[in-house]
């Protein structure tokens, strides 16, 4: 096996690596190059402008607004999603207490488990269209109809710059929570039942059980969830594009980098500048992922 080992490996690797380089690495490299030009999408030989696009980026209020929105998304979205998903997963798996020996979920937990997963199988655009109706500013909207029925004034939702971003976050959470319920459920299912029983006998109530037994044993799963959700918080493009007023509005109250990249590239034909934003987004995402994995690193727990 020593001889002919490399041809063998190369034979397997050549095609996938070639495809990966062509469609992933090369576009990345090109984006870095384009970011340093003033390319407008049509000229064959764009002029090289160095870091000028990045200098402009730092002066751009819209860029900073989008960045601030990512900051809010990054804090709120993973936190709310994980807390909700953990709560639901706990209720579905051990929340019913130790009736009849085994720890069980609350009544009807099998049904809820399926229902929670529904939003996950919908395409983002469909979700955006649905919530466009839910958030409709007049009585035709689900929420405003409800508010009207109990005698409250209608809210503008997506058209109100004060709450529009939070409406977007609510949809993101709504769609993501089901997946993380399933992820955490799987994590909880792998915790041996007798550990829960031992904790019950040791005198742990549900709160103790959750914070001192379930949560520490779920740490690895939690960390993965945090990274996924954080990276998702740097995206949110499709939802904002379809759901928000004026694509990122009103008055850029919900805009995110993806939206601005698209707008700059395909509406303003400023491909160079859009690429610079893309490069900034790339570094933000990668820094976040590395930081999260580093900060939350703990000794792996063997069950």
């Amino acid at each position: 096996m020593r001889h002919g080992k490399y041809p063998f490996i190369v034979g397997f690797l050549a095609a996938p690596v070639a495809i990966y380089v062509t469609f992933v690495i090369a576009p990345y490299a090109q984006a870095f190059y384009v970011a340093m030009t003033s390319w407008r999408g049509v000229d064959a030989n764009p002029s090289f402008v160095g870091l000028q696009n990045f200098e402009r980026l730092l002066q751009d209020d819209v860029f900073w607004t989008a960045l601030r929105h990512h900051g809010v998304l990054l804090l709120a979205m993973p936190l709310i999603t994980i807390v909700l998903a953990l709560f639901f997963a706990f209720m579905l798996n051990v929340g019913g207490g130790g009736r009849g020996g085994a720890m069980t979920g609350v009544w009807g937990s099998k049904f809820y488990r399926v229902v929670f997963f529904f939003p996950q199988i919908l395409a983002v655009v469909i979700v955006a269209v649905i919530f466009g109706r839910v958030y409709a500013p007049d009585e035709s909207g689900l929420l405003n109809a409800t508010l009207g029925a109990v005698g409250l004034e209608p809210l503008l939702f997506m058209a109100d710059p004060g709450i529009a971003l939070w409406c977007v976050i609510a949809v993101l959470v709504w769609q993501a929570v089901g997946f993380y319920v399933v992820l955490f459920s799987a994590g909880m299912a792998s915790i041996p039942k007798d550990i829960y029983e031992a904790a019950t006998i040791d005198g742990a109530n549900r709160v103790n059980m959750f914070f001192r037994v379930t949560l520490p044993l779920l740490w690895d799963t939690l960390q993965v969830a945090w990274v996924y959700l954080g990276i998702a918080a740097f995206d949110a493009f499709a939802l904002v594009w379809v759901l928000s007023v004026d694509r990122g509005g009103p008055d850029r109250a919900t805009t995110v980098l993806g939206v601005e990249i698209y707008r700059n590239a395909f509406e303003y034909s400023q491909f160079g500048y859009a690429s610079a934003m893309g490069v900034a987004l790339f570094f933000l995402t990668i820094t976040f992922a590395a930081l999260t994995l580093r900060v939350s690193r703990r000794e792996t727990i063997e069950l």
Partner: protein
Amino acid sequence: MATVTYSKATRIYPGTERPAVDHLDLEIGDGEFLVLVGPSGCGKSTSLRMLAGLEDVDDGSIHIDDRDVTHLPPKSRDIAMVFQNYALYPHMTVYENMAFALKLRKTSKADIDKRVKEAAALLQLEDYLNRKPKALSGGQRQRVAMGRAIVRKPQVFLMDEPLSNLDAKLRVQTRTQIAALQANLGITTVYVTHDQVEAMTMGHRVAVMLDGVLQQVDTPRALYDQPSNVFVAGFMGSPAMNIKTVPVTEGGALFADMTVPLSREQVAAAQADGGDGKVTVGFRPEDCDMVSPTEGGMPVVVELVEDLGSDANVYGHAALNGTNERFVVRTDRRHMPNMGDTIFVKPRPDRHHVFHAVTGNRI
């Protein structure tokens, strides 16, 4: 320090007809080491978990001392349990594992420290207090599980096959340690096992269960010498007692050419309740002798000889009423027969056990 009383305690798992534990009546004295033993599925673990509060009690009641704990949650019962897989908290150190229950009870830091250190000293765990369970051997984990129970100073210890995950040698060693520890602490202990050797060696009293029904509770010795029915007779002792159902006559039980003498009362009892001319007789392998052909023994053809070092088990068969029945005889190594030999086996007088052929109860 407490007594435990099961009064007609019954557990029926949802969706099943037959109770897993059927009207269990059992009294366990203060400081007693009671072993629940039986084949798998006999309800011994369920009985223990009912006492722990991990299983519902569908009927009857359970008392610890005079307190009715039937429907109390586990934490209000003042019990500690050692699980088969130890159920240590993998994310906590040995120290934290042992301190967990005390911490939940808001015991003071100094008190926790003192009690954990004491338990660690008792179990030779002092050097491992800062380790996580995964860095411990099986025996050490088992001791941590014991320690977690000891620091609580509970009224009752519950142990659910705590030795079954250890290798044979360590099991024997730990067996004596647990027995000694229990004697030292004097805490009432209920111990579940499927291993009748553990039951015989550790328990002050042993409760034998089958199909959810308690068969007999007694000291190991009485259980061995006076089994109350065929099941207990066959379950206790290794190799198992030779138990055969044979025709009964005025003089006794007929084993081919050999008659095992029975008293008149025994013969009468065997005939009652549809005994149909049969009686079940058992004798232990060590309670019979190999005799010369003229002394009235039963001819047995040797199939296998197990040399155990100290003595030997001889397995063979004899023709009884037209069928070949298997027998085991324990013998001195100096008189070991060879395979294929015919030996003559005779139970020692008055060391045989007589049971009713239909009900299986001792006569």
